[in-house]
């Protein structure tokens, strides 16, 4: 099965890429192309929903690393959602994501984003 990528825009400056299928040496370039488009816009929080992802190889990890680097440059965040066991295993080995950036489900992620928005409003002059 190839890779399918769906882009969702919900909250302001937040974009979610929903991945399903297989992220490997053949499909990672599709993700990179999509990332280039997403990163060309104003985005502060980039969420990868990996609920439908069967597995990732190092090619996929490189795409994630690239997006983490790009988002850090603009003081944004990359968050990961719904890691399935084969993906979690590879993330653990490569220490691909900070624990604080990985969320079990949408509810956990929404709570986090709510708190982040609230904090930003309070800090705004």
């Amino acid at each position, binding site marked *: 099965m190839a890779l399918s990528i769906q882009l969702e825009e919900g909250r302001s400056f937040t974009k979610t890429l929903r991945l399903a299928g297989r992220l*490997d040496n*053949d499909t990672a370039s599709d993700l990179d192309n999509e990332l280039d488009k997403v990163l060309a816009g104003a985005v502060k929080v980039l969420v990868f929903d990996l609920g439908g992802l069967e597995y990732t190889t*190092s*090619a996929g*990890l490189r795409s994630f690393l*690239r997006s983490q680097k790009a988002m850090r440059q603009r003081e944004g965040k990359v968050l990961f959602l719904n890691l399935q066991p084969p993906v979690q295993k*590879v993330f653990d*080995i490569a220490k*691909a*994501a900070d624990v604080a950036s990985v969320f079990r489900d949408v509810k956990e992620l929404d709570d986090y984003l709510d708190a982040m928005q609230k904090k930003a409003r309070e800090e705004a002059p």
Partner: protein
Amino acid sequence: MDARRERKAALDRLEACCRAAALAEPIVIDLRVVAEEVLTNVAKYAFAPDTPPALELRVAFAERAATLEFRDRGRPFDPLAAPAPDLDLPPEDRPLGGLGLALVRALVDEARYEREGTANVLRLVKRLTPQ
């Protein structure tokens, strides 16, 4: 067929063999991931960019283990000797390379490289835990 399609065909074939041998799903995925990492690295480092990589992959199943054997006649390249990336750096500060072979080392139970005459031979053993 170009090298990329040939690699995908080999990986699909490996996966089909693993399924035919009724391996547990997580093992099938680990073996596919490991084989992809080895094939891409051998193509990159044991062969010149304009040379089509010629590589043989054999898989053998025993009761307790699956063995992958990769054999090529490229220049000497020991994938197990590749320096491990510093995984304790935050993701944002990491170099992008070296991850694939780090995955290989972590996902198999035994790994051995030998230069046999003019061939690179890499044998990887994955234990089959009863489900």
